[in-house]
């Protein structure tokens, strides 16, 4: 069952990714992207990362994609049908870069087996499941976030503040 769902989500994610790159209108690209994000969230669920799956749907597919949609609407790019794929030397370069990246990543990932990727995989998974049963799906992420990684967490807040101020300043019309 898990394998069937995984294949389904993987196919939707890959198809959506190709749709993002190849579709002619920005709005269609965006909707393909939402499909990809939703199916990646499904794969998160298969890996027992329920909280991240919820965040993925709410924040990524919900907020960030709607932000993109607002900008497309605001700039009135929704019916910009001119093909904007680069051909010639660029497609050659793209093929070379994609081939190299795929080769390196594929070689690194091909041998990853389900048990013993680093240490005892099954024991780590069992410990994670026990922690989720005890603290809940959000608690198991929140606990290290507010203890070991609290500095990084606060810096994240600062980063978001800076990003908000920067976005407002940049997007404001010059008077």
């Amino acid at each position: 069952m898990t394998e069937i769902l995984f294949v389904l989500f993987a196919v939707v994610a890959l198809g959506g990714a190709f749709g993002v790159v190849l579709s002619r209108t920005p709005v269609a690209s965006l909707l393909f992207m939402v499909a990809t994000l939703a199916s990646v969230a499904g794969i998160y669920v298969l890996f027992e990362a329920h909280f991240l799956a919820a965040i993925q749907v709410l924040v990524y597919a919900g907020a960030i994609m709607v932000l993109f949609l607002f900008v497309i609407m605001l700039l009135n790019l929704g019916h910009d049908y001119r093909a904007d794929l680069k051909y010639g030397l660029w497609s050659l370069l793209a093929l070379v870069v994609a081939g190299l990246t795929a080769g390196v990543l594929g070689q690194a990932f091909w041998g990853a087996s389900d048990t013993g990727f680093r240490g005892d995989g099954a024991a780590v998974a069992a410990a994670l499941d026990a922690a989720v049963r005890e603290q809940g799906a959000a608690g198991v992420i929140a606990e290290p976030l507010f203890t070991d990684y609290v500095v990084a967490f606060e810096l994240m807040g600062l980063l978001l503040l800076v990003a908000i101020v920067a976005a407002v300043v940049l997007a404001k019309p010059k008077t």
Partner: protein
Amino acid sequence: MLAYALLLSAALFVIGTLGVIVRRNAIIIFLSIELQLNAVNLAFVALSRYTGIEGQLFVFFVMTVAAAEAAVGLAIIISIFRHYKTVNVDRFNLLKW
């Protein structure tokens, strides 16, 4: 399933790279970068099953950075659009020689 998830993440990353290289629309290039971030997130989540909860924490941070990046990047795109009346990256040649 770990190997397949990692290979899927590699495939998504490569497709995102392709999108960054071959498209001219700045917004689609941005979407492709988001796709690459998502591919890395997928690898993190898949590996967190085998190395501990830290992988999921990093996904949390990556999502925050992606949100900040989307806000600032889209503001820059709006600002550029005001100046050039287009989001075609071939027209932004001020720094080219």
